[in-house]
């Protein structure tokens, strides 16, 4: 990417079980303080655990009850993150051209919680048992539409479903369209609220990676994160805080290829990467392969530089990469979270470059390299 096309992250909004403030979330990741709880999802009323859920009262959605009735939880989380993202980025869409701002969101499961409540009646023979909002609340592109309407975003916008790399695909598309000048800004991220009885059962029944009892490799989680991506010049002109420079994004059929591609594109040696945020969302062989690929690439000193977030906020599938990118931004300039965990927050070498991996259940991967923004 040419220097004048340098793209940065200039706004962040997130909601997950660890909180909805970037600093708080990053602190909790550094302290390895997980947010694991339970919630009754099935008709037997027994709380399902472990789950990483977001407190209803902790979602900063700013919507009325009437508006909420039309939306599934994954859209509500996405709206909350998008609103905070634009506010943090000091971007008022109404001041500019709506068609110059795009929206790129990853989502894998859609909104089954909304449908589950109504589908029993439907299958009992009442085709009118579903309410009029099912058609627009359930499908994965619902957050894209609702956010575009709420915030007045009119530019090219798309939704991506590719498991744990969905948000990585969203970032890739948004970033390129900004760099190519099609858009001035792109709100990119991911959202997921898969904690429904039906979706949970399907994961137990049909996905590998868990143990013999069918438990998932990581606690199922929910959340959303949105990042404002734009050219550096555009962000500085608005006096927006620049959280990170985006050095490169690579999509590949395997994580060793995506990591190699991203380092090659950014012309960065592995030893210049200060922190690696692993995907580790699938369990089993996929996670082992990722760890092996990271070990092969980064070699010695690995333990000081690698963290995994899913044991902390759960596996939020399509939101994972967006949350990890936000967390990665939060770590830039801080000391290593491993050092912080040991109480060595002061005096350590500040993190300048973070590599974020996403790997889906088919083994395909997206890797993103971000670095600390330094004015030149």
């Amino acid at each position, binding site marked *: 990417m040419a220097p004048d096309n340098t793209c940065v992250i200039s706004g962040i909004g997130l909601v997950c079980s660890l909180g909805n403030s970037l600093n708080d979330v990053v602190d909790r990741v550094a302290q390895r303080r997980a947010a694991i709880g339970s919630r009754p999802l099935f008709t037997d009323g027994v709380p399902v655990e472990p789950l990483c859920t977001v407190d209803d009262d902790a979602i900063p959605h700013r919507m009325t009850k009437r508006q909420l009735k039309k939306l599934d939880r994954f859209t509500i989380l996405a709206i909350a993150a998008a609103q905070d993202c634009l506010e943090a980025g000091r971007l008022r869409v109404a001041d500019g051209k709506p068609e110059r701002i795009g929206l790129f969101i990853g989502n894998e499961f859609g909104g089954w919680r909304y449908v589950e409540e109504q*589908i029993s009646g439907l299958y009992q023979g009442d*085709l009118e048992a579903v309410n009029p909002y099912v058609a627009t609340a359930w499908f994965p592109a619902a957050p894209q*539409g609702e956010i575009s*309407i709420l915030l007045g975003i009119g530019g090219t916008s*798309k939704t991506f479903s*590719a498991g744990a790399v969905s948000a990585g695909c969203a970032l890739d598309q948004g970033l390129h369209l900004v760099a190519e000048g099609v858009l001035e800004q792109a709100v990119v991220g991911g959202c997921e609220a898969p904690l429904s009885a039906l979706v949970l059962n399907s994961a137990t*029944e049909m996905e590998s990676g868990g143990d013999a009892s069918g438990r998932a490799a990581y606690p199922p989680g929910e959340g959303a994160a949105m990042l404002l991506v734009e050219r550096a010049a555009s962000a500085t002109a608005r006096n927006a805080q620049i959280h990170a420079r985006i050095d490169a994004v690579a999509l590949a059929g395997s994580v060793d290829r995506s990591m190699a591609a991203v380092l090659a594109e950014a012309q960065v040696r592995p030893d210049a990467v200060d922190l690696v945020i692993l995907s580790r969302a699938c369990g089993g062989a996929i996670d082992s392969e990722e760890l092996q690929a990271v070990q092969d690439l980064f070699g010695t000193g690995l333990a000081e530089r690698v963290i995994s977030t899913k044991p902390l906020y759960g596996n939020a599938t399509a939101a994972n990469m967006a949350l990890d990118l936000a967390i990665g931004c939060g770590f830039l300039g801080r000391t290593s979270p491993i050092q912080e965990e040991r109480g060595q927050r002061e005096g350590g070498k500040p993190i300048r470059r973070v590599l974020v991996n996403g790997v889906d259940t088919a083994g395909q991967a997206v890797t993103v390299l971000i670095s600390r923004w330094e004015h030149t």
Partner: protein
Amino acid sequence: MSRRRVVVTGMGMVTPHGPDLPAFWRKCVEGRSSVSRNDLFTIPDHISQAVGMVRGFEPASLDIYDNSQTDDRALLFGVSAMREALTDAGLFKNGLVDGSSGGVDPHRCALHLSSAVGQISSMERHFCRQTDAGRNGLKPSRQQLPGSNPFRFGSLSTELGSRFGLGGFKMLIPTGCAGGMDAMASAIYAIRRGHADVVVAGAAEAPITPLVVAAFDRIGATSKRNHEPECASRPFDRDRDGFVLGEGGGILVLEDLDHALARGARIHAELTGIGSVNNYTHMTDIPETGWSIALSTEWALRDAGIAPDRIDFINAHGSSTPQNDTAETNAFYSVFGERAATIPVTSIKSQIGHSLAASNAIEVISSVLAIRDDILPPTINLKHQDERCRLDVVANTARRRRVDCILKTSSGFSGIHSSMIIQRYTEH
């Protein structure tokens, strides 16, 4: 540096007109209706019973895998259409993408697919199995079942890609009824940026289920012309009253021009321009002025680097809803001025219904076939043209005419409007 050109080198489809492309095109040119009454499940008279259903589809004949009994119908449509498209492109051998001849690197061969409702039949089937068709509540399951998880939307593309041995990146773009073109747009970007040499792109959809039928009925989107279902889809007609739910799949092999030429591939057409915007107004309504459709069209024309007067045929979204067809007409007048009244326009949905994301993939293929055969397929059921749709609709009978530059429009829930320019391939 000039950007890479993207051409179509393979096409395949499954539609209510038949299980493959020749069957579709024959009936399409004849102007036949493949819309009929839904006999899959009981529907009350006051709910739409007309559907564009694929009948006589024999997945066992696909003979490239052995789980056709358990696979979702959308996946089966995708497999069938993709097999036909890869064969057409000369890239299919022994059940897999053929990398041995022609220098195709499977790792640079990606899949960008779309589906608005994914593997919804399987999802509903899982619900019924776990609840005894809604009679019991959902309880924790400890069963272990084979197959991929249909609740994951992305699994449709990863399943399809892995079955054909595609080593490149696989993703699903579930942007509702604009999805097929959005998947193609994503593919075009990937090729232009050099991220892939070949991208298999399109959509597969099997939405004729109780949940989807009920959901569309509840918002009054579907036609209630139950007494004559074959006439229910009637775009631009004064008496249209909603769309007809359809199913099917349309897959195209998109390829970098130089890559296609180097391996001696047959080039069907070139995709030169794409444009997409949000109307940021309403999740399902379209602004009556058509401004957002016009804007996506202007973007596509600009992306193609051509003036509006080059467009000589419009393959419209033409959903047969009162709102869409008027908004589209207004958009065409906004872009083309009074010339809009003389540009031939058609809507394939009049014949086979609206297969959501798959509809625009199928319509892009029909556009390419129009260029190939110099034939404009008709919009059937046009008895009394709506005076608010003052267009040169190719009414009821195909028209023989050479076309070189086609505009394809599409609109979807979430306020998405996507447009594409499809051109006859020339060397320069």
